[in-house]
């Protein structure tokens, strides 16, 4: 029987710990029909602005809408690619430079589906989810992040 999927929480408070990523990889060891994983990790960059260097990004979201949108994107990607698994995690709150703020993980029998799905997911997450990043420069200065 086809598995019934429901909206999942994608949000993590603060940075995504490398240990969580390692654990997530380990959790797939029992799924022996998987032949390839693709992982994207977004990391907060220390951009240099007129007012100074970015120290962190503070993320906020319209959470209910973002989860609904993420669910629709998941369904569309599952319909398009023969995937075994898909996981999406996005930070909320403050993430310091050098820390991970986005973790997208796709798995499939053969590599191409996992790689294609991962890339498309990242693009759609950045473009379609109501999430905002505010770049913190110092106590006085900040700037709303602009996605390119």
């Amino acid at each position, binding site marked *: 029987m086809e598995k019934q999927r429901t909206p999942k929480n994608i949000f993590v408070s603060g940075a995504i710990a490398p240990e969580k990523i390692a654990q997530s990889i380990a959790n797939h060891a029992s799924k022996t029909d998987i032949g390839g994983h693709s992982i994207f990790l977004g990391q907060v960059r220390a951009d240099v602005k007129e007012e100074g260097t970015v120290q962190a990004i503070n993320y906020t979201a319209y959470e209910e809408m973002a989860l609904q949108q993420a669910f629709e994107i998941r369904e569309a990607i599952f319909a398009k690619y023969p995937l075994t698994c898909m996981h999406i995690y996005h930070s909320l709150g403050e993430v310091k430079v050098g820390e991970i703020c986005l973790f997208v993980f796709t798995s499939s029998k053969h590599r191409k589906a996992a790689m294609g799905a991962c890339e498309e997911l990242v693009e759609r997450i*950045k473009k379609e989810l109501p*999430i905002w990043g505010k770049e913190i420069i110092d106590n006085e200065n900040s700037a709303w992040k602009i996605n390119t």
Partner: protein
Amino acid sequence: MKILAFGKIAEIIGQEELQVDNFPNTEILKGYLYQQFPDLQKMKFSIAIDKKLTSGDVSIPMDVEIALLPPFSGG
């Protein structure tokens, strides 16, 4: 009706939630917002009705949740 504001819009408005009278459509709502918060005229934003993005001028049903969304910048 309830209007939720996010990101830079919440900063311009000075709060994350507004209670206002009902507006028949999004154009009239925008006119009201521009008048109350002139800085909004300088920025791009979308309007969601009950968590669905709208485009162009659409009518606003009763008892819905309106959200003002600046350009997304997740990831």
